[in-house]
């Protein structure tokens, strides 16, 4: 059952990603990306990461993608820009080779043996106890990142056109 759900979600995610790359209309592409993000959130659930899944939906699919859509629609510029076709062909070949190599290498190293999870692995409680004990410094520093983003929005957004 889980395996079937996983394969469905994975297919959905890959489909969303491919469409996001290929669709000429930027709005459609952004929508496809949202599909990918939601499917990824589902996969997180399957991988016993419910907290991350919620964050994924709330922040990624919710906030970040809204920002993207907002800019795409606000700017109202022609976005049907053709792809670089030859790069696409070459990139697909190179990407395929890369995939083969990576997966092949990792398979040689890592066992597929699943391990049983500890009680409540991946829950919000578990995440927070690690986050605020072991990783409190990076957590605080992430706020610096957000501060920079806010300053960026103010500095660049309120710039009078020259």
């Amino acid at each position, binding site marked *: 059952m889980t395996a079937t759900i996983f394969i469905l979600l994975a297919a959905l995610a890959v489909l969303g990603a491919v469409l996001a790359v290929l669709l000429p209309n930027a709005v459609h592409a952004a929508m496809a990306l949202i599909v990918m993000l939601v499917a990824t959130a589902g996969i997180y659930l399957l991988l016993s990461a419910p907290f991350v899944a919620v964050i994924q939906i709330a922040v990624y699919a919710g906030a970040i993608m809204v920002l993207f859509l907002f800019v795409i629609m606000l700017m109202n510029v022609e976005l049907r820009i053709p792809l670089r076709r030859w790069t696409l062909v070459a990139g697909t070949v190179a990407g395929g080779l890369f995939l083969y*190599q*990576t997966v*092949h*290498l*990792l*398979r*040689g*190293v*890592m066992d597929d043996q699943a391990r049983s999870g500890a009680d409540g692995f991946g829950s919000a409680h578990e995440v927070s106890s690690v986050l605020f004990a*072991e*990783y*409190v*410094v*990076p957590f605080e*520093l*992430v706020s*610096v*990142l957000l*501060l*920079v*983003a806010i*300053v*960026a929005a*103010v*500095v*660049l957004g309120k*710039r*009078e056109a*020259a």
Partner: protein
Amino acid sequence: MPTLESLPHVLPEVALAVTAAALFVLEALWQPRGRARRVGFPLLALGGLLAALLFLVASPSSAEPRFFGGLLTQDPFSTFVRGVAIVATALAVGLALGSPSLPSNRRVEYHGLLVLLALGMCLLSSAGHLLMIYVAIEIVSLTSYLLAGFDDRGGRSAEAGLKYVLFGGVASGVMLFGFSLLFGLFGDLSLSGLGQALAHSTTLSTGAGRWATLLALVFVLAGLGFKIAAVPFHMWCPDVYEGAPTPFTALLSVGPKAAGFAVLLRFGTGLWPELATDAAAATSALPWLLLLGVMSTVTMTVGNLAAIWQDNLKRLLAYSSIAHAGYMLMGVVAGGREGPGAVAVYLAVYLIMNIGAFAVVSAVDRSAHSEDIGVYHGLGRRAPLLALAMAVFLLSLTGLPPTAGFVGKLYLFASLIHHGGFWYVLLAVVGVLNSVVSLYFYARVLRAMFLESAAGEPAPVSLANSAAALAVVLAVPTLALGIFWQPLAAIANFSGSLF
């Protein structure tokens, strides 16, 4: 060392964070006008940086170098690089005084961001944990993207910022993928943990495991290479340097590069601790060193050859800074105590001479409104002092005695040769040959300044600004350290050790 006991050791970082916060909050709540704004805020920023530097100098020594449970590692090398980062930022603050390339109503944000950048660089140079490396790199990157796009006089700057974001985003994405593979392979995120796993696990050091590790390292190298602007991750560099406001370009060419080198070195010694003691013994690190050696060769060659064709001084210095990343990579390859020591010496020298060169560019730009080599024609007559300072910086960048640049190169080559072995000496030969190539384009600037005369009536170049003053001041140590370099020898001695 656990969190609370670690705090006294990160007082410089705390000081920087507090300063940045103070700048933003004061600007938001108080919004002073006039002199308080023009002078007060830069002074506040400088004060914060000075405080950080003092805390750094006075930081308590500790037998245990790992703080916050291994997130940060402090050793002499990281202490030194943190100092470089803070001093470089202070110089960028000075360079920005009165610079027309920064919008007058956004000065405070500029200074706040600079201080945050300094914070990021400090953290990056002492990060001992993959997550810390990632977060610190992102702090440095995000502030840099914004600062590169800070100039609002037409689109060059915003374009530079955007190109920087795109390249930076991809580079950090690739690096992140590499980190995820490392996490998967090793099951640990701290550098010391990775090193132990590598030393004890046979699956990781043989066969497919070895190759998988190498693959992950190549991905990681993409991100780090982007930060130090090494080929083939250098494409952003000329565009961003040209478009970004010059005071920030000066910092960008030194600070993040220094922090990048610190993390690159720490990454190597974290995974293969023998690199820090006896580089020759680290046979399992051979692919990593090979990668870096090839990268070094290609980086300096491409940087120097591309610089020959540049007519814009900022682009020329951008390619030259790529080439210098290649030179410094030689020190990383050399390893041992001498390698990091040589890199540290070169960073100190590079800080002075490169910021100095950008200060001259900034000073000329203020009156000529151009960075084209054409406006440098006859500078030797119009502004002899400035031209002389520039000549000192250029000769130092070439590595000619009696300038500090020569001493820096001497240490780098010596570290390679001291390591011994045919390939190491060959790399040193490539390095000196590259210095010869670099002479060609640095001499072009010399020629423009002294041997050509200006066409028409060029605008007089004023010396009465912070950039010109800084250039002249920086020329003094560039020469003095070339003649009496005991302080540099002390740096090499001090910062040669990494753990």
